[in-house]
C-alpha cells in the first residue's frame, strides 16, 4: 500500500569506515544507495556482519556516516534529526529500558519524551502484553521483550518504523506473532524498514528486499522477482523407478542444474530450471515409457538460493 509520492527513506552512497588497530580500517558500509517508498515494508537481508545494523543505525541517526546522505520523509538526517525523531519509531537489536519501572510506566515516560500522553493499555494490547502491564522488564521472556520494544517504538505513532532483527532468536509462535504485528503496521499505511537474516521472514513480510553482504547491496527487488531472475528459479523434483539419462535432462532448454540423491532405494532428482513449463513439455519424451515417475513436484526457489547465488556461500550465524 503506497501512500505518498515522496519516498519515506532515501539513502545515497552511504559509506561507514571503522578505524581498527594497526592503522587498518573496516569498510562496514560500502556505497549503499536505495529508497523506501511510503507505506512499503522494506527488508535488509543478509548474514550477521553484513552491514545491515550499521546501515540502519546511520539512517536512524545513532551512528554518523563516513560519507553519504540520508533523507527521511524529505528531511536530511544530518541536519534535521531532531525534527525527524518524533516521526520515526525505532526498535534496536540490543536495547534496554529503565529497569525499575513497570511496562506501563516505561511507555508513559517514553510518551513524555515525545510530549505526548499515551495510553499504555492500548499499546500493550497491540503487542499482546496487556497482562504484563505491571511487570518489570526482567520478568519478560525474549519474545515479550521484543514485542515490548516494538510497543515503545510506537508511542509517538510514527510514520516510519525501523525494526532491527525483530524476530532474531524467537520461537516460531513468537515470530508469527511479530509478523502479524508488522502486517498490522502495513495495513495502517506505515512504512516499515526491517533487517533480518531469516529468508522466509523477508519473503513473507517484505514488499521489497535488499540483499546486503560485505557492506554492499548485491540485489534489490521484490522477493518473487529476485527469485524469478535466477537461472534456477524453479525446482522439478521427482523420483524414478530406474536411473535416467542425466545428460539428456540437462540438455533440456532452461535446465540449469541437476542433483541426484537416494530415496528408499530409488533415485531422486532435483532439476533446476528457469521455466518449468518448457521443461515439463518435453519431460516424458526424455524419460521414455519404461521409466515410472513418482512424486513429481514443481517448487519455486527461495530467497536463500538467491542469496547463495549472489554471494556464493552459506548464510553465516
Amino acid at each position: 500500500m503506497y501512500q505518498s509520492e515522496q519516498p519515506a527513506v532515501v539513502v545515497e552512497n552511504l559509506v561507514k569506515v571503522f578505524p581498527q588497530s594497526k592503522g587498518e580500517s573496516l569498510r562496514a558500509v560500502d556505497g549503499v544507495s536505495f529508497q523506501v517508498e511510503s507505506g512499503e515494508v522494506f527488508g535488509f537481508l543478509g548474514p550477521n556482519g553484513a552491514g545491515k545494523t550499521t546501515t540502519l543505525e546511520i539512517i536512524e541517526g545513532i551512528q554518523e556516516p563516513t560519507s553519504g546522505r540520508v533523507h527521511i520523509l524529505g528531511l536530511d538526517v544530518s541536519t534535521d534529526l531532531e525534527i525527524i525523531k518524533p516521526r520515526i519509531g525505532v526498535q534496536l537489536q540490543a536495547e534496554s529500558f529503565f529497569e525499575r519501572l513497570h511496562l506501563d510506566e516505561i511507555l508513559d515516560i517514553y510518551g513524555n519524551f515525545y510530549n505526548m500522553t499515551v495510553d499504555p493499555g492500548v499499546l500493550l494490547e497491540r503487542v499482546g502484553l496487556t497482562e504484563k502491564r505491571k511487570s518489570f522488564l526482567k520478568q519478560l521472556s525474549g519474545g515479550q521483550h521484543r514485542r515490548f520494544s516494538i510497543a515503545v517504538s510506537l508511542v509517538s505513532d510514527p510514520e516510519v518504523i525501523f525494526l532491527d532483527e525483530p524476530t532474531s532468536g524467537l520461537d516460531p509462535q513468537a515470530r508469527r506473532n511479530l509478523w502479524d504485528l508488522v502486517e498490522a503496521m502495513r495495513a495502517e499505511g506505515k512504512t516499515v524498514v526491517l533487517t533480518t537474516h531469516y529468508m522466509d521472514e523477508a519473503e513473507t513480510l517484505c514488499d521489497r528486499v535488499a540483499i546486503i553482504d560485505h557492506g554492499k547491496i548485491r540485489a534489490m527487488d521484490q522477493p518473487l522477482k529476485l527469485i524469478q531472475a535466477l537461472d534456477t528459479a524453479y525446482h522439478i523434483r521427482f523420483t524414478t523407478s530406474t536411473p535416467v539419462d542425466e545428460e539428456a535432462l540437462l540438455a533440456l532448454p532452461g535446465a540449469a542444474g541437476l542433483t541426484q540423491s537416494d530415496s528408499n532405494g530409488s533415485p531422486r532428482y532435483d532439476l533446476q530450471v528457469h521455466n518449468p513449463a518448457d521443461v515439463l513439455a518435453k519431460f516424458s519424451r526424455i524419460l521414455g515409457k519404461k521409466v515410472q515417475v513418482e512424486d513429481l513436484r514443481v517448487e519455486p526457489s527461495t530467497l536463500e538460493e538467491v542469496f547463495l547465488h549472489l554471494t556464493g556461500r552459506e548464510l553465516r550465524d
Partner: protein
Amino acid sequence: MLAKLFVTNLKMFTRDKGTLAATLLFPVLMSVIYGLAVKSNVKPLKLVVAASPAPASQQLISALEGAREKNIKIFIIRRVNSEKAAREAFKSTQIDGALIVPDITEKGVVTFLYDEKSPEKYFRAIGLVEAAIKSYNLQRAGAVETVQFLRQGLRGGDRGQGFEAFLPGLLMFTVVLSSLSFGASRIIGYRETGVFKRLMVTPLRPRVFLSAEILSRATIASVQTTVVLLLAVVAYDAQVKGAAFWLFLLAIMGALFFVMIGFAISGMSDSPTAAAGVAQLLGLLLIMFGGGFPTSFLPPALGKILGYLPVAPMSDAMRVVILDGKSPITAAPRESIILTTWVAFSIALAYLTFRFREPSKKR
C-alpha cells in the same frame, strides 16, 4: 519532561532496595557506630559508699557525688552502713569500687577500693577522689585557693567533644560514597545495557536527562543529610551550632561533584569498562588524598596541590558550620571557593561532554 524524569528517577531509586538500603542504612550504621564511640567515652564510675553519719563525712560524700572529669563521672549507687558491707558489695560485678569514709570530724583516712587487675580503668577516678579530698581539706582549713588548676584535654584539630566532632566526616563520606558508587555505576550501566542508545533515538536531550539527574541526586543527598542530622541531634545529642541550611548545601554540592564527574567520564571514555575504571580510580584518589588519609608523607609541593581537591574543603566547611556556628562563606572562604569551583567545573564539564552516544566507536 524534566519534572517527569525527575519523579521517575526518584521512583526508580525507591524501588531499588539495595541502593536504597545502602544509601540510607550506611549513614544510620555509621551514626550508630560513631554514637557508641562517643557515648562510651563517658564512663560511669559506680561506687558503693560506707560513710559515717557525721556531718563532715557526709559533706565529703556530697562533694564527691556527681564529680566528673572529662569522661569519668562518679555515681554513688549504693550506701551501706559498714566497711564490711562495702567490701562485700565490691565483690558484686555491678560495682566498680567502694569508698569507705569514717568519721572525719577531727581527722581520718578515706579508703578507696578498686580492682587491682585493671587499675588504669580507675586512674582518673583515683585522681578525682584525691582532688576532692584535698579541696575539702583546704576548705576545712579556711585556706583560699589563689591558684586554680584547669585540666582541658584536646585532640589535634577536634573542637567538638561529642558526636558533632564526627559529623562533618560522616556527612561527607555518606554523600560522596553513595554518589560515587551509585551515580557512576548507574550511568555506566545505562550505557552498557543500551538504555542510552535507546534514548538517543527519542527527542529527549542529554542536558534534560542530566538536569533530572542533578535534581534527583540533590534530593537524595538532602534525604541522607536529614537522616544523619536527625540521628546526630536526637539520638546522640550532637551540638550543631550553625544553620542546617549550609550543611544541606555543602552535602548537595559534594554529591553533585561526584555525580557530574561520573557523567563527564562517561561522556569522554571510549567504553563503559574504561569509564567504570576511571571513575573508581578517580573516586579513590579524591577520597584518599582529599582528607581520607594523611598527606604529610608526600612532597610538600604535591601535598599543597592535593589541598585543592574538593573533599577536604567540603569537610572543613562543614566543620566550620557545625562546630563554630559560622557561615562557610565568611569563616571558610578559601574552602568555599575551592568547592564551588570544583562543582561548577564538574557540572560544566558534564554538560559539555555528556552524550547518549559513545564518544568513539571502533569495531
